[in-house]
């Protein structure tokens, strides 16, 4: 490794790209489930938990400030291009930056802090729901046209405004759970294989 560890090098950037790809493939495969109305808010539980596995592995390679932020920006850009709206770009940057700070406080090695980092980073998922809360009427008008009245009505009842806070907390908690699962898998498999 490079001894000048302060700045992000090309190798780190490649690492970010690789883990972002794994993270996105896993979450996108799950995101198709959200066509079923009840699964839509439940995504905040499933995605952080499953995404926690690659993310924890990513953290073992993250030793520099800013890498998680870049990952957050990438998530936002991909969401923008896949038509999920621009909110994810904003939440991606914020959650990424916060996660970077937490991980820095853990000196890039603390086991406990890595779990918290996953929790904080998982907060970016809220960006996919922001459109519902902020521009509620426009969103549901669009939803009625795209998915039919029944789907939109069900989502409407599942997502009153106070749910924004609940979803945020749920994201964080399931991020913690995902972090724990990821950590135990890391211990079981990746340490043995010499990757983590």
């Amino acid at each position, binding site marked *: 490794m490079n001894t000048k560890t302060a700045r992000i090098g090309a190798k780190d950037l490649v690492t970010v*790209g*690789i883990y972002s790809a794994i993270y996105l493939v896993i979450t996108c495969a799950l995101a198709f489930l959200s066509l079923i109305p009840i699964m839509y808010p439940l995504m905040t539980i499933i995605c952080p938990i499953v995404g926690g*596995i690659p993310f924890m592995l990513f953290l073992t390679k993250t030793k520099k400030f800013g890498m998680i932020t870049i990952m957050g920006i990438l998530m936002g850009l991909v969401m923008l291009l896949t*038509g999920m709206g621009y909110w994810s770009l904003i939440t991606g940057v914020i959650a990424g930056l916060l996660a970077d700070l937490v991980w820095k406080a853990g000196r890039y090695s603390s086991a406990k802090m890595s779990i918290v980092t996953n929790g904080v980073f998982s907060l970016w998922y809220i960006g996919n729901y922001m459109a519902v809360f902020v521009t509620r009427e426009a969103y549901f008008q*669009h939803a009625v046209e795209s*998915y039919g*009245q029944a789907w939109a009505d069900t989502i409407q009842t599942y997502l009153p405004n106070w749910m924004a806070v609940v979803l945020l907390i749920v994201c964080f908690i399931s991020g913690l759970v995902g972090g724990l699962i990821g950590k135990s898998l890391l211990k079981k498999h990746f340490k043995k294989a010499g990757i983590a």
Partner: protein
Amino acid sequence: MSWELLSASKKSKGVTLDPRTKLIVLITICFLVLGGEGGGLALVTKPMLTAIPILLLFCFGKKKAALVCVIIYVTCYLGEQFVVPVTTGATNFVLLFLCGFISRVLPGLAMGYYTVRTTTVSELVAAMQRIHLTEKLIIPLSVMFRFFPTVGEEYHAIGDAMRMRGIRFGGKKTVKMLEYRFVPMMICSIKIGEELSAAALTRGLGAPVRRTNICKIGFKALDIVLITFCAVLFILTILRKIGLLGVLA
């Protein structure tokens, strides 16, 4: 099915667009077709925006794919306009869901497919350098796009291997699926990723000097037409949002 996303070599056929134009059109479609509102103006703009990627696909030589897109889109569009209003109950729900969903997703998918099939990694990098995106985003982005097909491929291969061992939905080891499928997939991907990063570094990716790029990109007449068209659509949508243009809304 080919998993190739961004092709490595250039197959020059028909019209060529600047990668930036493709991205602008893609974003426009995502915003206005996938996420946009219906009614009024959108009745005209949505079919127009759908026509762009289909025409581009046609010019690229994907005549069959373009034709299939047209048939699917027209069926859904007509279904949405004429069949849906006369049905009721469950049939209505299913039809509306199918037609509405497909006619909204199809243009984005077609444009996305066209973009990734006609853009090489080098061109994408050149285009991103031209818009002065920082290297900190260019490298991970290009790696990510290069890596998506690899992950997908590995995911399917491992899925097949695990199904043979009874690790699947409804099998005896459903609970173990998460662990038994993701862990090998990640180990594979990481190995490939390390090789990829070594290869990229050998080609001078991390060098402190500015990299040169052999790709010639630039805006031509068609690019300008498309970009202007997208800009006009965006302006009209914004005007409509703030209440002007009441006639069209």
